[in-house]
C-alpha cells in the first residue's frame, strides 16, 4: 500500500461502505435525545446530528445513495450517448446534423441548471433525481463518441471491413468502439466525479431523496445550519464528499496519462 495509490483506497473505502450499507441494517434513524449534536466520542466516532442520530451510519447510508445514482445514471447515459454518437458520426448527413443540433440545445444550459429544473418539476425523490440526471448528462458521451467516430471512419481497417461486406453494426461495435474505449473510459470517470457533486447539489436543494433517509447533500444542508455549535457534523460530510470527488478526479487524470488520451 503506497501513498501514491490513495485515490484507489478512498474508492475501496467507499465501496466497502456501500456493500456494508446494502447488507447490514444500521438503524440510521435511531434517535438519542440526550445526545443531540454531541461531539465525536469513542462510541460515536463522528458524533451525532441535530436529531441525535449517529452520523457515521448515516454517512455510509448516504454513500449508498450516491453510489446508486452514479452507477445507474452512468450506465444509462453512457449507453444512450455512445449509441447516438456512433450513429451520428458514422452516418453523417441529416441524422448527424439533427443530433448535433439537439446536443447544442442541451449544452446551452450551463452546468446542472437543466437537471435542477427537471428534478424540480418532476417532484422530489430518488427516482426523479436519477431521471433528471439521465435526461441531462448523455450529451457529453454523444459528442465525444461522434467526434472520435468521425476521425476513424476513413481509416483503412474500417474501409476494408466495409469492402468485405461486414454489417454496419459489426463495424461500429467490433472495429470502431474498441478504438474509442480509452477516451470514453476517461470521460466516464470525470463524469462520475461531477455526478457525485450533482447528486449532492440536488439533495442540498431538497430535490433528492427525502428525510428521514440520509443523503450527503441533505446532511450537508442540515450540518451548515448547525456549523457554529457543531462543526463536526458539516466537516464529516463535507470532507467525505470532497475526498471522494478528489479521488475520482485524480483517478481520471491517472487513467488519461496511462491510456495516453489527449486533453
Amino acid at each position, binding site marked *: 500500500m503506497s501513498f501514491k495509490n490513495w485515490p484507489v483506497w478512498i474508492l475501496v473505502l467507499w465501496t466497502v461502505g456501500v456493500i456494508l450499507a446494502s447488507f447490514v441494517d444500521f438503524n440510521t434513524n435511531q434517535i438519542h435525545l440526550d445526545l443531540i449534536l454531541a461531539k465525536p466520542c469513542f462510541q460515536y466516532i463522528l458524533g451525532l446530528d441535530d436529531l441525535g442520530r449517529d452520523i457515521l451510519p448515516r454517512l455510509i447510508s448516504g454513500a449508498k445513495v450516491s453510489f446508486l445514482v452514479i452507477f445507474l445514471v452512468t450506465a444509462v447515459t453512457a449507453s444512450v450517448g455512445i449509441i447516438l454518437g456512433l450513429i451520428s458520426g458514422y452516418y453523417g448527413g441529416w441524422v448527424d446534423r439533427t443530433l448535433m*443540433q*439537439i446536443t*447544442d*440545445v*442541451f449544452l*446551452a*444550459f*450551463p*452546468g*446542472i*441548471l*437543466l437537471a*435542477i*429544473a*427537471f428534478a*424540480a*418539476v*418532476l*417532484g422530489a425523490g430518488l427516482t426523479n433525481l436519477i431521471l433528471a440526471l439521465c435526461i441531462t448528462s448523455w450529451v457529453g458521451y454523444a459528442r465525444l463518441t461522434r467526434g472520435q467516430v468521425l476521425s476513424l471512419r476513413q481509416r483503412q481497417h474500417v474501409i476494408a471491413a466495409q469492402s468485405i461486406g461486414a454489417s454496419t453494426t459489426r463495424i461500429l461495435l467490433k472495429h470502431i468502439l474498441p478504438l474509442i474505449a480509452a477516451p470514453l473510459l476517461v470521460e466516464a470517470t470525470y463524469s462520475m*466525479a461531477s455526478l457525485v*457533486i450533482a447528486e*449532492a*447539489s440536488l439533495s*442540498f*436543494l*431538497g*430535490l433528492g431523496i427525502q428525510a428521514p433517509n440520509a443523503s450527503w*447533500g441533505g446532511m*450537508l*444542508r442540515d*450540518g*451548515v445550519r448547525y*456549523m*457554529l455549535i457543531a*462543526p463536526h457534523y*458539516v466537516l464529516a460530510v*463535507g470532507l467525505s*464528499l*470532497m*475526498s471522494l*470527488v*478528489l479521488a475520482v*478526479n*485524480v483517478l481520471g487524470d491517472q487513467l488519461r496519462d496511462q491510456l495516453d488520451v489527449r486533453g
Partner: protein
Amino acid sequence: MIKRFLGIIPVVFGVVSLTFLLIHAVPGDPVEVMLGESASNADRMELRAGLGLDKPIYAQFGIYLSKLVQGDFGISIHSRKPIVDMLLERLPATFKLAAFALLFAIFIGLPLGIIAAINAKKWPDTIANLLSLTISAMPHFWMGPMLMMVFALWLGILPVSGMENATSIILPALTLGFGLAAILTRMTRASMLEVLHEDYIRTAYAKGLPQRTVILRHALRAALMPVITVLGLQLGSLLAGAVITETVFSWNGIGRLLVESIEKRDYLVTQACVLVVALVYVIVNFVTDVIYTQIDPRVRFLK
C-alpha cells in the same frame, strides 16, 4: 459574424422549446400541482386558461412563443407580480456577483498559473497543482460554508450572508470564483508552458531581457488567447454555480429566485429563470466567439 448569429437561432429555438416542455414534465395536472388543494376554482380556471392547457399542445406552444416575444413570462402564482419584473429585479445582483467572481478568478488564477509554469515541476508548481485539484473537488455548497465559518464566524471580519454591506459580496464571490480560478490556473500553466518553448522566447532571453519582461511582455500575450476562450465558455458555469451560491449566502439574485420558486412550486417562475439563464449563456458564448475572432488575426484569416 452574421453567419454565426444565424447559427444560434436554432439553438435559441431549441432552448425555448425545452423550457416550454418543462411544465409538461410535471406529473399529473400541472395546475393542481402548482396551486395545491386550497386554491379556488376561479384561480384554477385562470391559470389553466393562461397556460392554454385546454388547447392542443402546439397551440399552447404558439401562445407561449407569442407571449415570450412580447416579453411576457406570465404572472407569478405566488407573488401575483409579472414574472418579467421579478427577473429584472433579480438579474443585476447575479450579474454583479458573477462579475466579482470573474475578477477574483482572474486575480487568483492568472498569477498562480504563471508562477506554476515558470517553476514547472518544482515546489511552487506542485503547490499550485494541489490547490487547483482540491478546489475543483469542492462544490459551492461546501466551499461557501467553509469560507463562512472561517471569515465570518471565527475571524469575524466579513458578514455571514445577506447583501446589506459593501463587503457582503466578498464571500459569495470568492465561493463562486474559486472553481473558475482553479480552471484558469491549470489553463494558464499549460498554455504558458507551450509558449515558453518557442524560439522567440529563447531569443528574448538571449538578448539579455530580464525574466520579468520576457514573461509578461512576450510570453503572456501569446499564452492568453486560449485562456480567454476557456474563460468565455466558463462564464456559464458561474451562472449555474450562482444558483447554489446565492442560496447559501441569501444573495437575492436570479439563482435564489429559482430555488425559491421551486420550493413554492411556482413553476412558471422556475421556467422563466431557467430560460433567461440559458439565453444569457448563449449570448455570452456568442459574444466570446465574436471577440475571439476579432482579436486573433490567425482565426480571422482562416475564415
